[in-house]
């Protein structure tokens, strides 16, 4: 599926956090490229830098050193406003705790990014939201508020919200962590199906089930990439 230009390209990226006078390195000299159509997992134990890496790619944080290119744009040179715009146009987010807007129903939560984009008319918006509701299998819950939905249903709403702007890549931070195994499997099935239909996914996780489904695994240990092989041996090693 590779098309020549990667969606995400990291070159020599480091990220330091400052705790008082102590500098804590979260990422060290990471280089990584994500090609369109990938279903990639960033694996590693807690504190290994998975979330930091995802934040840099997700343009919600900036690197201390090195270059992060998202859809060809160097995030280090963009203003906060431009970064926000980049997130809106090119990225989709799926959170561990779903992070839906509690006062809006499923339909409205999914529609929300489109309203921020202000590019589609009402009818196009409705069509796209309805389609997605169907695809993620919660059409009958369109007008339920998050409080009235189960965890799996909420994550399905979150997935639909991440996909509604047709982003270049969907970033998912531990998407199955708050779900029971049955639901988690169903959600992974859904994402894999969406991946097959063309959406690029990048996960952070330490859930072996997610890793076992990955097309490619990037293993992080102490902020460094230990390994990025896509072979089954790798998967087994992490298991």
């Amino acid at each position, binding site marked *: 599926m590779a098309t020549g230009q990667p969606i995400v390209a990291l070159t020599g990226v480091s990220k330091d956090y400052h705790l008082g006078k102590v500098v804590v390195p979260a990422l060290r000299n990471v280089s990584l490229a994500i090609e369109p159509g990938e279903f990639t997992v960033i694996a590693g134990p807690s504190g290994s830098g998975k*979330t930091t890496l*995802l*934040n840099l790619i*997700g343009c*919600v*944080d900036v690197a201390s050193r090195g270059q992060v290119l998202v859809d060809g744009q160097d995030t280090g040179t963009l203003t*906060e*406003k431009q970064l*926000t*715009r980049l*997130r*809106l*146009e090119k990225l*989709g*987010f799926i*959170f*561990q*705790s779903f*992070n*839906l*807007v*509690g*006062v*809006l129903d499923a339909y*409205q939560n999914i*529609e*929300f*990014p489109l*309203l*921020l*984009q202000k590019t589609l008319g009402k009818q196009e918006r409705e069509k796209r939201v309805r389609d997605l509701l169907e695809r993620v299998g919660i059409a009958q819950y369109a007008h339920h508020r998050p409080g009235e939905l189960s965890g799996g249903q909420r994550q399905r709403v979150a997935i639909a*919200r*991440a996909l509604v*702007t047709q982003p270049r890549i969907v970033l998912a*931070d*531990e998407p199955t*962590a708050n779900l029971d195994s049955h639901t988690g499997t169903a959600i992974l099935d859904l994402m894999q199906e969406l991946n097959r239909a063309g959406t690029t996914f990048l996960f952070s996780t330490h859930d072996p089930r997610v890793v076992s489904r990955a097309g490619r695994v990037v293993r992080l240990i102490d902020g460094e990439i230990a390994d990025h092989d896509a072979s089954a041996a790798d998967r087994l090693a992490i298991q």
Partner: protein
Amino acid sequence: MILFRIALRNLASHKLKSFIVGGLLAFGTLLLVVGLALLGTLDVSMEKSVSNSITGQLQAYSADAKDKLAIFGNMNGGTDIGTIGDFARVRQVLESHPDVQAAIPQGLEGGMVYGGNIIDTKLEALRQAEKAGDKETSAVVRAHVRRIVGLLAADMAKIGEVTDLANASTETRQAVADLATAGNDAFWQDFDRDPLAAMEFLENKVAPLALNAEMLFFRYLGTDPVRFAKAFELFEIVDGQAIPPGQRGFLFNKLNYEDAVKHKIARRLDKMKDRLEDGKTIADDTDLQAWVKLNKVQYKEITFQLDDRATKQVRESLQKHLSSTEVALEKLLPLFFEVTDANFATRYKLFYDVVAPHLMLYAVKIGDTMTVKGFTAAGYPTSANVKVYGTFRFKSLDKSALAGSLHMMDLMTYRDLYGYLSADKKAEIELLQKASGVKEIKREDAEAELFGGGGEEVVDAGAATPTDVAVAASPVDEAAAATQVAAHGPSKPAGGLGERASNATKLYRDELNKRVYTQQQIDTGVVRNIAIILKKGVNQRAAAASIQALLDKEKLGLQVVDWRTASGAIGNFLWVIYSVLAAALGVIFIVAIIVMNNSMVMATLERTREIGTMRAIGAQKSLIVQMFMAEAVTMALVFGAFGAGLAGIIIAVFNHIGLPAWNDVTIVLFAGPRLYPTVGLHHMLIAGVLVSLVTLFSTLYPAWLAMRVTPLQAMQDAE
């Protein structure tokens, strides 16, 4: 829009909090709209009552004035607001201005008049009877006077029981001696030998001791009565007639005339009648009960005034009405005044049919010529005789003592009293000089001669005015009396310098009251302030500035103020209410701001993840701020509209039933007994803007906090 949808949902999901904050906003809006509507209406009604009764829309007075003009503000009229030397010229300039309808001359002063003295009245009747040779009436009146002397002597004896009269002041000892003389049989047996001397003794020595020789203090407005009546639409004559054009004269304000000049018991009965008609009952109302009691104990106010013939008539009527065989009027009258809700109407009628015709119902009657005493600008006592033509009132303000305390006097008499040397005054001085043989009087001496002493104080206006001895008895005129004694010795007008001057002045003064002045004569001379009536539809503020500019250009040395400033305390009253309203609203809105701010800060903290998520999926900071604003505006709109709507209903109800005035001041403020407030679109708009500002202000800090939430906070939450 999505933001309002989120806002509404947020408000709905925190119902209690929304209702507390919203309740505050709604109450604030309600207070604001009701307050603004009431004050707006008050402003209009007050302008109507104040500017259409006395002040005009604008007032002009001396730019050099030491004090500020305060038409309702200063009860003694002694503020130094300077003078306007040449009214004719100022009038001409003012009325040449395109905005000015009329310029009305004015001057406020305080004065006093002696209320009718029963002995004086009876002596006058005696004189008439003697002159006519009516022996029977003369005998009845003499008996009445003798009875009064007896009552006075009895009162004096009572005083003697508690104080040592032998060691009392010279005046008191003299009074005791005079009463003894007048009570002596010999005095009355000798009466016919020299009736004039006897009457003079009674008039000079005994009459001043009579109980009801009351002094009436009042304020009056010196003005051009004809032009005043034309300029002020609320002015109307109640009893009698207007002062004839060009003539001197006096008009009592109806309310004060009834309150202060009418016979006490009659007045009390009138007030009882009004109150009963208002739906109160003697059985329940404590004021009415108190008045009944007062009437019962004050029967002497009546018996004192009745001669034998009248006593007999009243006794027979009361006996018949009360089915009583009691002979003493002193017992019949208290029985008669023991009124109840059932018999009040009959007794009220009987009082006016049977008793009142024998009483001096008013201390000064319409048609009387009374002597008004006052002080000149320089502080000398002064007096003028002026005919009472009638009473007047200001329409719809007739129940307010504030508007009802100001009487009216013609400008010529006013100037005389105030001590300005008018053409008439000059003539009088010349006459005095001639009559008294004084060759030359310096300006300053002339004033002393005219106002401080000399024959002038001896002149009586007639039955209802005091003698010069009465003057001496009043402390205010002590200086005058002293001057008088020093100049002429004992002030009996028994020949000599004083009498000649006095007679000349009296004749001159009688003639003055018949004189008719031209408008030119009325206008020429001093006034203290000028009411400026503007043409309809003229902008007051612009007119004031332009008139001031004109007066400055003409170098007239005058300042122009609006009716509000000119009216003094009452003009500030509205500002006081405005301030109270502003303070109340301030407190409410500050509380609203604190509560709202607090609850929104809490909401921001609660919603950190939600805000972070929105930021992460691409919402700009500005959108987050807008979201908070939308919440505040929704709140302001929903609850503000509710408060304003409720306020509209309240005002509509007030407008329908009218807000009753509860005292003197409110009658003037309301321009009548009830206020019918209206609410304008601008009141709603002001309220809307203010409430929106308050809510937006209370949103600033939480919105700033929300703006600082980063998308990372949505992510970190996951770990």
